[in-house]
């Protein structure tokens, strides 16, 4: 086959000419590829965005971390009386924290935290939020950074100072006009002095999905003294008292390999001391692995959908090319009589199929880049269009053109010139 660049260029031009002679038909044919390629890229972008979000969330929890949360144990339904009053005691204890420290000396940081729902108030501004009683090294277990002032200190904890550090978003909500450092903040009746502000994303508690929770951080000892061990919860028709010493413990394993064994040992140890199932161990690393596995399955499913939609697009191309070959039988005969070889005819029709699918691919890529943007703007979902997905989609559209263009092209070339010339 003497396919020089020059010949390729002329054949390409010949193909585009004949496609442009039937603009609507060409466009409709390419539409299958356009939608196929566009949806592949868009879906991959949404999938990639979701998995990025998941990984980001997990990363925020710390890949070497083991997070133990207190959970309310499942309980039997208690009667049908409208007013229920009881006291539930559950969760992690100071004793647990102490035991872990003694039994696992290689666990680096241990961040105990105690979460108390609280109404924050400054002047007339009231904000439902929560007070987190914690230790000075709390930040090292999160991805948050200090923005201004200082974090809690050992001295704060030792003397149970009435100081607080504002979590992300709190400063703006409570002090819209003021600079909060040194100002007073009320939690219930207690007043606290703001000593610092942190920024970043809070990654605490079982309901950590809620990004914009208003959190303030106070010394653990202060929280214990001010709020006691019991927390009262009032809901419609219910009055509940919960006694929880610690809501969360964050452990940092010395290495990623040690994360799972340490988590398992801690679980066994805690089970031994807890009568009820009132804690939950989260290992971000395992979540990460799960997220990766989910992503793989997601990609396989998307891949199949993509394959089917491109198959449909390809069949559309093949259909039109077959019709075109029949319609242009006479032209094929003329070209053959004037000296075109079978290869010349194959190339001519293959070029048309390829141009069709390539043009479809390019427009589809445009759509595949545009749709995720719309999704981000209107549905507030993170989307990531990776260069790999663009390359893949482009390669697939070329392959579709080749695969579905070759048969009609071969059929065109196989006709005898005499028969073709006689065709009306």
């Amino acid at each position, binding site marked *: 086959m003497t396919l*020089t660049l020059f*010949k390729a260029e002329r054949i390409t031009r010949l193909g585009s*000419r004949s496609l442009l002679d039937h603009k609507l038909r060409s466009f409709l044919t390419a539409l299958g590829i356009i939608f196929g390629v566009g949806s592949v890229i868009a879906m991959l972008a949404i999938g990639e965005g979701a998995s990025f979000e998941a990984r980001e969330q997990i990363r925020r929890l710390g890949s070497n971390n083991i997070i133990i949360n207190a959970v309310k144990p499942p309980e039997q339904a208690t009667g049908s009386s409208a007013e229920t009053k009881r006291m539930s005691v559950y969760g992690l204890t100071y004793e647990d924290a102490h035991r872990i420290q003694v039994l696992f000396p290689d666990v680096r940081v241990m961040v105990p935290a105690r979460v108390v729902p609280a109404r924050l108030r400054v002047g007339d501004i009231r904000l439902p939020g929560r007070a987190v009683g914690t230790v000075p090294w709390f930040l090292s277990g999160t991805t948050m950074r200090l923005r201004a002032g200082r974090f809690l200190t050992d001295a704060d904890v030792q003397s149970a100072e009435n100081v607080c550090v504002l979590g992300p978003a709190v400063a703006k909500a409570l002090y819209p006009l003021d600079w909060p450092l040194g100002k007073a903040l009320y939690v219930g009746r207690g007043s606290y002095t703001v000593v610092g502000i942190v920024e970043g994303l809070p990654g605490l508690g079982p309901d950590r999905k809620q990004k914009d929770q208003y959190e303030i951080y106070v010394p653990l000892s202060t929280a214990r003294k001010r709020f006691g061990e019991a927390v009262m919860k009032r809901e419609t028709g219910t009055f509940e008292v919960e006694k929880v010493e610690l809501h969360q413990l964050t452990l940092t394993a010395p290495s990623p390999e040690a994360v799972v064994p340490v988590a398992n040992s801690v679980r066994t140890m805690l089970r031994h001391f807890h009568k009820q199932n009132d804690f939950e161990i989260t290992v971000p690393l395992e979540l990460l692995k799960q997220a990766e596995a989910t992503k793989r399955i997601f990609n396989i499913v998307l891949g199949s959908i993509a394959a089917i939609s491109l198959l449909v697009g390809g069949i559309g191309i093949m259909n039109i090319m077959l019709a075109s070959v029949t319609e242009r039988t006479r032209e094929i005969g003329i070209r*053959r*009589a004037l*000296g075109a*070889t079978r290869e010349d005819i194959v190339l001519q029709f293959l070029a048309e199929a390829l141009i069709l699918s390539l043009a479809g691919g390019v427009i589809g890529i445009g759509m595949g880049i545009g749709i995720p943007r719309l999704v981000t703007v209107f549905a507030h979902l993170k989307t990531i269009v990776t260069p790999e997905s663009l390359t893949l989609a482009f390669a697939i559209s070329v392959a579709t053109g080749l695969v579905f263009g070759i048969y009609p092209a071969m059929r065109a070339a196989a006709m*005898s010139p005499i028969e073709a*010339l006689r065709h009306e």
Partner: protein
Amino acid sequence: MAAASVDAVIRVEGLTKDYPMGQDTVQALRGLSFQVQPGEYLAIMGHSGSGKSTLLNLLGCLDTPSGGAYHLDGEDVANMDDRELSRVRREKIGFVFQSFNLIPQITICENIEVPLFYKGWHERQSRSRSRELAELVGLGDRLRHRPTELSGGQRQRVAIARALANDPKIILADEPTGNLDSKTGDEIMTILDGLVAQGRTVVLVTHEHDIAAHARRVLWLADGRVLRDERPTP
């Protein structure tokens, strides 16, 4: 006759062509022999079914014979494969068809360029050659038009220009006036006569005596054989 065969542009010996027709075979050509010298003006005549279309297809290298030999310009084309036959058509043959056979989607200029396209000519060269040829047949001002915008006679002139594009050894004209009225038919014949006058070899297939009368030699076919080989003296 055999003595002059070295220079003959067409040399046909014992040419046969069989078509399978169900169980039977139809013998369209039953052993034809003749030669055509360069510059000859030959008309092939015969009734329908005489085998003249079959002969034209073989002469035009659109088909291969079942038996016998065919040398075109010294090349044995009887046993060539499709690829080689395409090359011979591209280099040595110019076709003029009864129904013009122009490609309707492209311009006159591009139609004339088709043979050059497959010869691998560059665009600038083929464009100037096509302009030259269009002027030769008196259509220099219609280069940008489409075939459908031309009259029958004009279309056939374009077809003649196209047949000349590759500077062929022989021009095969299959009933070139069959779709034209007698006046335009005469114009076309004048052009063909002119080509012979310039030294080209023209083989004409027709069933009209008036048309055959233009040629200097008439080959009568009947039943797949040469009936008469006449050289009427002008």
